[in-house]
């Protein structure tokens, strides 16, 4: 399921709009994840996950930062996220099912912040894009 040129353009355009709020959107996506899917908290026993916590914000930035790297290197997501892919495969070993959950929560945050821009076509493009990122991050699992 590769991205068409139109889809790549849609991803890059929306990234442009959200880049300045990436940290907040990242934190919000994680909040949505931990509230909606409490089992995901098992990966963060060492974190203060309360709303507004510094760790939540820091981690949200990291996550959306990586999404941004993928958007800026959309023709070579595999290359752009190679180190992160190894990290997830050998150290973090987050079960693959959780990438779908986080992707869904990122889409919810995008929809909530940019309702007018989040057309069905943009929604489809971002769903595919996040799915591609998820594939790259789980590529080396076995």
């Amino acid at each position, binding site marked *: 399921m590769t991205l068409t040129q139109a889809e790549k353009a849609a991803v890059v355009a929306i990234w442009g709009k959200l880049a300045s709020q990436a940290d907040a959107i990242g934190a919000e996506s994680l*909040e949505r994840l931990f509230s*909606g899917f409490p089992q995901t908290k098992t990966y963060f026993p060492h974190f203060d996950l309360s709303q507004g916590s510094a760790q939540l914000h820091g981690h949200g930035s990291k996550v959306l930062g990586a999404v941004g790297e993928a958007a800026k290197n959309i023709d070579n997501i595999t290359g752009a996220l190679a180190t992160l892919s190894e990290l997830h495969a050998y150290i973090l070993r987050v079960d693959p099912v959780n990438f779908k959950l986080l992707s869904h929560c990122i889409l919810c945050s995008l929809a909530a912040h940019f309702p007018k821009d989040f057309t069905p076509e943009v929604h*489809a493009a971002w769903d595919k894009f996040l799915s591609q990122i998820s594939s790259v991050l789980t590529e080396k699992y076995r």
Partner: protein
Amino acid sequence: MGEFTPDEKHHIVSLWSKVNVEEVGSEALARLLIVYPWTQRFFSSFGNLSSATAIIGNPKVRAHGKKVLTSFGEAVKNLDNIKATYAKLSELHCNKLHVDPENFRLLGDILIIVLAAHFGREFTPACQAAWQKLVGVVAHALAHQYH
């Protein structure tokens, strides 16, 4: 599975009271067909589904989206008894419509995204969590009679 706290019930019922069932229902179904095009397999009688524009403007999609979300409203009215509420519909989806239950999960998540788009800030993580639970219970109930 299936028991809602008073807070969750409040989130669900109060948001639902502001939902335009026809608009949200048709948008959710259209997005399902656009974002996950393989779901179009169930709607070969719907006519033109060849593009996002065609799907959004398709009157059968609109009507069916309204029908589906109206039915969803039954769950909201019977939060303590969703399984029984959907027993017959579950049989229908299995025996007559032959719908893979995975599609209920897909539509549930799309509905949540549409709610996020419509309600923005008001659709807080806590509100979303209540709705995630609801769509999960609905999907489970619709799959319950499958054999």
